[in-house]
């Protein structure tokens, strides 16, 4: 197949999977919340309420769309679009599997394995906040603006610790290429064994960057009505809510890739599977790992209360940042004394 055509097709498939997964994560989240709160959860639309995401989507699209009179029309529409765009952009560097061989042609399962994959990831994460900021400001509403300001300072603060925790990982793996990082974890231990502290910092930062509870301060309904999306209605609100699930899905995939071996699983070469069968099983295992992280995201949301804003800032700057720096230092020392440094 033509390489460009295949890349486009792969992009469509990856986006489709991300969007589909995000849709069913809304269902999963409600079911899980119901279990934790001893309720039934969505049960009317289809068996076990499985058609609920579709019903929600249809409802969102057909709701009346309102744009506030004194808002900035262009930016008001641009906000959710940009947020959705940045949420989807990260998925192209994630290796979803080792690749299939059909009729002697190799079909890779990663859209692009650029050699600055990790930097691309950080870059997209760092511009992700613009969607919220533009939307919140353009709404011309005090609560929206406060939510947008909170989102921006929160994301800036946690990006620092996130980037520093990744630097320690780059030191041990010696590459910025995500495909290479996954291949290195084949056969050996997963990176989390070498970088436990780095993983913990990255995990906490991922919660903050995706605006998930206990760090969902940009949209605290108890103080800011709806936060940055107070004025939004119809599918534009849907985009904001939906992009959060996509972000969660992608950051779960990133954590599984970087720290938990990606599509590799223990004893994968002793199973007697080869080629395509192994690749398919690997992809399924990768999805399983992602589901595990998504479950963690939801579990924490329905368990922990929200942080106060000063607590959030203190955690980011006074605990996570020094810890991340110490992690880099310790990693460097260990590498130096174990002779891994050239």
């Amino acid at each position, binding site marked *: 197949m033509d390489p460009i055509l295949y890349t486009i097709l792969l992009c469509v498939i990856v986006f489709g999977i991300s969007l589909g997964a995000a849709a069913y994560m809304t269902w999963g989240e409600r079911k899980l919340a119901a279990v934790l709160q001893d309720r039934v959860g969505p049960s009317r639309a289809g068996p076990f309420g499985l058609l609920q995401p579709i019903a929600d989507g249809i409802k969102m699209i057909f709701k009346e769309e309102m744009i506030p009179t004194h808002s900035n029309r262009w*930016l008001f529409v641009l906000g959710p679009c940009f947020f959705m765009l940045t949420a989807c952009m990260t998925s192209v560097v994630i290796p979803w599997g080792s690749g299939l061989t059909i009729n002697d042609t190799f079909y890779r399962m990663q859209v692009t394995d*650029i*050699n*600055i994959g990790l*930097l*691309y990831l*950080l*870059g997209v*994460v*760092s*511009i992700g*906040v*613009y969607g919220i*900021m*533009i939307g919140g*400001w353009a709404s011309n509403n005090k609560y929206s*603006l406060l939510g*947008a*300001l909170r989102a*921006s*300072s929160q*994301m*800036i603060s946690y*990006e620092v610790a996130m*980037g520093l925790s990744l630097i320690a990982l780059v030191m041990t793996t010696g590459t*910025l290429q995500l495909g290479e990082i996954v291949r290195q974890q084949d056969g050996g231990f997963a990176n989390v064994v070498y970088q436990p502290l780095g993983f913990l910092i990255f995990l906490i930062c991922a919660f903050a960057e995706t605006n998930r509870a206990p760090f969902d301060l940009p949209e605290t309904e108890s103080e800011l009505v709806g936060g940055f999306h107070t004025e939004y209605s119809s599918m534009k609100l849907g985009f904001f809510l939906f992009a959060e699930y996509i972000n969660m899905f992608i950051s779960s995939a990133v954590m599984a890739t970087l720290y938990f071996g990606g599509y590799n699983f223990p004893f994968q070469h002793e199973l007697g599977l080869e080629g395509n069968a192994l690749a398919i099983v690997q992809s399924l295992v990768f999805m399983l790992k992602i589901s595990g992280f998504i479950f963690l995201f939801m579990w924490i949301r329905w368990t922990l209360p929200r942080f106060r804003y000063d607590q959030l800032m203190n955690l980011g700057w006074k605990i996570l940042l020094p810890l991340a720096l110490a992690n880099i230092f310790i990693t460097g020392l260990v590498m130096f004394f174990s002779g891994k440094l050239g």
Partner: protein
Amino acid sequence: MLTEYTFWFLSFLAVFSAFAVILSRNPVHSVLYLILTFFSIAGHYFLLNAQFLAAVHIIVYAGAIMVLFLYVVMMLNLNQAEPQRTSAWAKFLGAGAAGILMLVMIAVIRKAEQGTPAGLPVNAGTVENLGITLYRDFLLPFELASVLFLGAMVGAVYLSKKEIT
């Protein structure tokens, strides 16, 4: 071919958004156009195969500094651009300074060589090559720059702490 079209598109975008930065009445629009300018310049870096520079440009400028800019502009709520009250002297001096800057630019562009610089490998901008160059050939300037940044950081913290305690 595609590279050339991309170059023209990015150049047009960069110049257009740079003009829009100074011509916008609304400060928030100015900041957003500045972000667009940074993106188009990062695109130019990509065309020059300087991937690391492009990525860091996006992370640092578009992702961190401009977020802070936007934060400050939004927080101060500079919705309407207030009528500028500049004295005739300031205008005169400003025009003079800009004129001198333009002279320098014209001189530089006139002296600039056409075509690609010879002897520079195609992949000079990748992470590996950049790292080797920085840490082997320019180690001392690099470390000095780091110390300078550290000093700036300590100074900023000191200035912001002074009024509280």
